[in-house]
């Protein structure tokens, strides 16, 4: 009875506050835009040089000069602004983006995050992921709890890091963990997905965590 991808996205959308500037990663994070609560005004940042990203265009209105960081055609909104990649990552690095929601391969109990390479496999590059996790004020990870029955919530990441001590919240299909990065006390289990037993989470989690449901 784990959460679906849509339920995970909906849970992540609850992290968005009114007036937030938010960067959404590829995959489940992209779905988050569909679950922003009514009355919450949010501005989406696309790191290739756009603020105020709109939805996909209507058929026939695709513009090759208007894409998001996933290289998908998108649309603009009245509040949209465009700028260079240097200015875009100035925003990111300078801490002007409130929230980044992204996927990960592994997260460690100290907030270390790995999502860009698997040794031995062809490396495609980190794109903007390292800048986002290092620069954005709050990093929320949305990912499956396990990958092919391998735990992804670990004491220490085994994959090369994208960022050190960067994740603040992890939302999986089974549970929600907070990470107090300064305490060194591991993760804090905050929520269980509907119908998921604590026992299952304990079994599938290598990271140490305290329960504070």
């Amino acid at each position: 009875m784990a959460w679906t991808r849509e339920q995970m996205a909906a849970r992540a959308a609850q992290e968005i506050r009114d007036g937030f500037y938010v960067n959404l990663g590829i995959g489940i994070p992209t779905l988050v835009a569909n679950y922003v609560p009514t009355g919450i005004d949010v501005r989406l940042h696309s790191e290739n040089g756009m603020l105020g990203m709109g939805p996909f265009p209507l058929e026939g209105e695709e513009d090759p000069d208007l894409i998001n960081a996933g290289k998908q055609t998108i649309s603009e909104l009245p509040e949209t602004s465009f700028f260079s990649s240097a200015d875009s990552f100035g925003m990111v690095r300078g801490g002007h983006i409130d929230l980044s929601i992204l996927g990960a391969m592994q997260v460690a109990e100290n907030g270390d995050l790995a999502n860009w390479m698997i040794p031995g496999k062809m490396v495609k590059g980190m794109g903007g992921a390292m800048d986002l996790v290092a620069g954005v004020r709050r990093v929320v990870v949305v990912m499956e709890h396990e990958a092919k029955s391998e735990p992804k919530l670990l004491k220490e990441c085994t994959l090369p890091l994208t960022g050190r001590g960067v994740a603040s919240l992890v939302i999986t299909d089974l549970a929600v963990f907070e990470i107090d990065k300064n305490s060194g006390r591991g993760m804090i289990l905050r929520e269980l997905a509907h119908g998921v037993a604590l026992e299952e989470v304990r079994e599938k989690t290598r990271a140490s965590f305290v329960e504070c449901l």
Partner: protein
Amino acid sequence: MQKVYSSAVESIAGLLADGMTIMSGGFGLCGIPSALIEAIQLSGVNGLTIISNNAGVDGAGLGLLLESRQISRMVSSYVGENKLFAQQYLAGELQIEFNPQGTLAERIRAGGAGIPAFFTKTGVGTSVAEGKEVRRFNGEEFVMETALFADVALIHAWKGDFEGNLVYRKTARNFNPMMATAAKTTVAEVECLVSTGSIDPDQIHTPGIFVSRIVHVPDPEKRIEQRTVRRLAEETV
């Protein structure tokens, strides 16, 4: 001050040498200098180091220069869309230096602005910081990154005038403005070539001082990598 050339081939004539470093604007296939890349392919120059966020796709953009085996080294942030790239890399014919995208953008901006090095928090504690100086400022760790500078920069702009002033369009801006500042010679292809004085001076993205050569490429072919659309009733993605 005659900057306008009559074809892409002429606009790069006399600038090329084997083993040189070329910056090429664009993000994915958006805002790439397609006509200039084709001219580079025609020139046959090889052993190139290319600084570009991506490496094109098979058959388009920098993919063309991979096909003709003119590239020996790439400095990029993401090269995922290209089978030929993987083949040449695994065969040891192609070197790659990965940079975080923001670090890549900032290194290029630094190169153009006379900043030989700067500190950033991006990549601290990762393989990107290996072999680089890490230093604390206000209790936080930062890694030192150095500037990038090229022999030639290839730029795609929407509009340009005879002075070399450029304006970019939407997300086709991306890496083009910084690259225009960070090369010995900058060559720009423009979709619209307009008379000097017809662009509002407050709205010039790249002042002409950075652009040595311009070529008019009307109606360039623009490919879309991921065509995503919504139906009329849908509100959001």
